[in-house]
């Protein structure tokens, strides 16, 4: 029976990565002082599982490496080794190496062997340095090969004396089974010794009173026999004595009984028949078990890891999905019956059926969407480590607080928000939180706090990164903005507009570029990444008190609540979330500002007008004068503007299809969808449209800053 082990790899990798997270979190907790035995236990278990799995599934290097970690953890667990900061750090670094090894294995690649070897040397150094016993366990790969000395002569068979202890059967073992197994090796002569059988009134049915003298007429390796008795060696007396062929010179070999005796204190082996000699066993042949061990060590031919990510789904979610599909099938069959002999008097029932269909479809859709939802802790979980490492490196004292880790977000958001968040948290740690002395001087607690939170607000998920550091240097940013020509000195900017400057490309105020953050790339990329997810980012800051960065993201990327609008013969979708209001603008509200294009006054603000027909090059729009059409006020990335369109059509949920994958990237368009009538409508990318309008209109980059 051959089983393709590759089918278990995916699960193995998933659980191994989870195990690594468990180890990392556990180690970070240990780091902060007292050691909880259960903590070490769970770290140990994770390492142990990875080792066991990687050995079984053929990733020998992973298994060997994990073995060393496991040994160290085992000593800590048993209290034979103190938990030192050094050991924890080495283990943390080993977790990283292990993660790389697993990632490489998953992709069918070879890991960075130098790094692995270096880290392994680190582990060995810690292992050999500590107070632990010097029992260095065998390497994982070096199996228990036969250590019997080699000899020239083969025995022709074996005599086995087998005297089970009375309790043998209560271990779940069965003498008959063992004898049967022996018989599988070759022709077996068995003689049963019933002399120990008690009188019937003393007979305990659960005890074993019998013993056997067995003779196996087959020159098998001794290990094969040992293996059969392996489980019961403490539950019986047994001796294995080789039967030698004629002409063998006993003088040439060491006393045989000595070895056999070790295991059979009770029974002297029956004297060998005259023509047979007994000898220290020395099989050249390897037992079947050993050969298998050899084969096993060869890692299975690596297939490239099956592409496509998988997702773990709560069975509750699947149940509700199946339930929903059931409802849908019932509705469908009801409608089918209705359609067979339809007449107008059944119209009400048809409507009712269609209503049900709609409701069930929507519920089904929601349930399916639920499957893609994962708790944001998938992303948050990396931050304790990050903050720990950074603060050690920078010599700062920082406590990371996290709330709302169970907030669920779309899987794609989880995958894409990681890097921007890392950047922001790094910024907070590097630039936000001050050195301990500085903090004390400013009358703040020595330990700074970075707070990461997530929550659902409306149809969005809001992630906030708050620190109690020194806040953004408003004047420095402004000065730099002026230096870079991003703003002019007489622009009257609000604080918020000034803080927004740090999202401009190439803007960094770090006095010294550190290797932690502040290379001058970043915040603009962060903003772009978040915009690409359909989200927005903004900063609030108070000098000396800290700052808060707020990220708003849509819950899902696959379905969008959209407003359909028309321009000429074209239909577009504007994400409902970015629309503030839709108004009719009178001519007298319009103002042309030199160099800043067409604007209109909305309450206290002047907003630029973006004529969609011009931006997208739509021919013959119905509305040419501002009063003929409608202005949709949208907001993106902290900027507002008015989209001038022919008219509004309606609101509907649309399923987003990738334009990039099916056609190509188009500036100002984030995707496409298929409408009820089968036609394709493009979904507007509001930040992109704003950028487009800026390029078309004036090239002045600050055009929008006044509207923020």
């Amino acid at each position, binding site marked *: *029976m051959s*089983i393709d*082990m590759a*089918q*278990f*790899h995916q*699960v*193995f990798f998933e*659980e191994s990565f989870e195990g690594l997270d468990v180890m990392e979190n556990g180690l970070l907790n240990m780091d902060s002082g007292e050691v909880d035995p259960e903590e070490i*236990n*769970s770290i*140990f*278990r994770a390492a*142990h*599982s990875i*080792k*066991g*799995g990687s*050995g*079984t*599934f053929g990733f020998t290097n992973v*298994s060997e490496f994990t*073995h060393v970690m496991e*040994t160290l953890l085992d000593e800590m667990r048993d209290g034979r080794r103190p938990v030192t900061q050094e050991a924890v750090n080495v283990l943390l670094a080993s977790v990283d190496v292990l993660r790389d090894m697993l990632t490489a294995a998953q992709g069918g690649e070879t890991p960075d062997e130098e790094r692995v070897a270096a880290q392994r040397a680190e582990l060995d150094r810690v292992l050999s340095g500590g107070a632990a016993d010097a029992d260095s*366990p*065998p390497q*994982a790969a070096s*199996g*228990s090969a036969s250590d019997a000395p080699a000899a020239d002569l083969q025995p022709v068979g074996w005599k086995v004396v087998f005297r089970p202890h009375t309790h043998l*059967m*209560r*271990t*779940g*073992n069965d003498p008959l*089974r063992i004898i049967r*197994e022996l018989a599988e090796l070759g022709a077996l002569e068995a003689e049963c010794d019933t002399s120990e059988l008690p009188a019937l009134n003393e007979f305990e049915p*659960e005890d074993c009173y019998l013993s056997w003298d067995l003779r196996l007429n087959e020159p098998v390796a001794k290990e094969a026999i040992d293996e059969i008795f*392996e*489980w019961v060696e*403490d*539950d019986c007396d047994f001796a294995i004595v080789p039967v030698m062929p004629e002409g063998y010179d006993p003088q040439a070999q060491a006393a045989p009984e000595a070895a056999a005796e070790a295991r059979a204190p009770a029974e002297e082996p029956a004297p060998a028949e005259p023509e047979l000699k007994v000898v220290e066993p020395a099989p050249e042949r390897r037992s079947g078990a050993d050969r*298998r061990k050899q084969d*096993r060590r060869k890692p299975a031919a690596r297939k490239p890891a099956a592409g496509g990510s998988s997702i773990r789904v709560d069975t509750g979610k699947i149940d509700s999905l199946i339930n929903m599909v059931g409802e849908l099938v019932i509705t469908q069959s009801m409608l089918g019956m209705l359609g067979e002999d339809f007449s107008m008097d059944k119209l009400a029932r048809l409507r009712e059926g269609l209503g049900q269909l709609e409701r069930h479809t929507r519920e089904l859709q929601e349930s399916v969407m639920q499957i893609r939802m994962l708790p944001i802790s998938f992303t948050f979980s990396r931050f304790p480590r990050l903050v720990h490492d950074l603060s050690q490196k920078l010599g700062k004292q920082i406590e990371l607080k996290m709330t709302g880790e169970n907030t669920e977000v779309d899987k794609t958001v989880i995958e894409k928000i990681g890097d921007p968040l890392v950047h922001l948290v790094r910024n907070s740690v590097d630039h936000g939180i001050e050195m301990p002395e500085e903090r004390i001087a400013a009358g703040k607690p020595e330990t700074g706090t970075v707070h990461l939170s997530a929550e659902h607000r409306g149809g969005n998920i809001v992630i906030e990164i708050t620190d109690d550091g020194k806040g953004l240097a408003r004047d420095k940013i402004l000065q730099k903005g002026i230096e870079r020509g991003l703003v002019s000195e007489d622009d009257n900017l609000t604080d918020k507009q000034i803080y927004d400057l740090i999202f401009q490309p190439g803007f960094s105020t770090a006095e010294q570029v550190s290797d932690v953050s502040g290379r001058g790339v970043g915040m603009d990329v962060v903003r772009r990444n978040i915009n690409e997810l359909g989200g927005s980012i903004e900063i609030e800051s108070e000098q000396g008190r800290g700052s808060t960065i707020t990220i708003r993201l849509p819950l899902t990327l696959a379905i969008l609540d959209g407003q359909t609008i028309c321009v000429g013969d074209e239909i577009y979708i504007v994400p409902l979330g970015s629309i503030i209001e839709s108004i009719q603008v009178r001519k007298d509200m319009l103002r042309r500002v030199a160099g800043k294009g067409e604007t209109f006054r909305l309450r206290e603000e002047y907003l630029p007008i973006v004529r969609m027909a011009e931006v997208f090059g739509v021919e013959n729009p119905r509305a040419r004068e501002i009063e003929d059409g409608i202005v949709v006020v949208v907001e993106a990335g902290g900027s507002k503007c008015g989209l001038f369109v022919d008219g509004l059509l309606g609101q509907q949920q649309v399923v987003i299809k990738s334009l990039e994958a099916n056609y190509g990237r188009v500036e100002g368009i984030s995707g496409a969808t298929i409408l009820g009538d089968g036609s394709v409508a493009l979904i507007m990318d509001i930040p992109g449209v704003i950028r487009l309008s800026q390029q078309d209109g004036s090239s002045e980059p600050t055009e929008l800053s006044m509207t923020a």
Partner: protein
Amino acid sequence: MAASILAVDDSASMRQMVSFTLKGAGYDVVEASDGVEALNIAKTRSVNLVITDVNMPNMDGISLIKELRNLPNYKFTPLLMLTTESGADKKQQGKAAGATGWIVKPFNPEQLLKTVSKVIS
């Protein structure tokens, strides 16, 4: 009726591998992810063989074997543990708790089936 086997391991991949292999060989397999779960299953139905990992949360394999061996229905049931090559003392602890034998990790499906066929016929 096919012999039934209770496979206990906190690692899903190992459990899947064991279960898949045994099912493929025609055994009836019940899975549990730790000792507590396994013990509950063992109490509510009877199985012909238990294969358990040693290191598990909530209740480890050794304790599970001890508990099972004390149940009248499991007095003679083969109880096998999955252990690593470095686990000589674990083997002893397991034996003391009443384990029938062990399967040394890492193992492949063929070895598993061979060992299982040793204890249930």
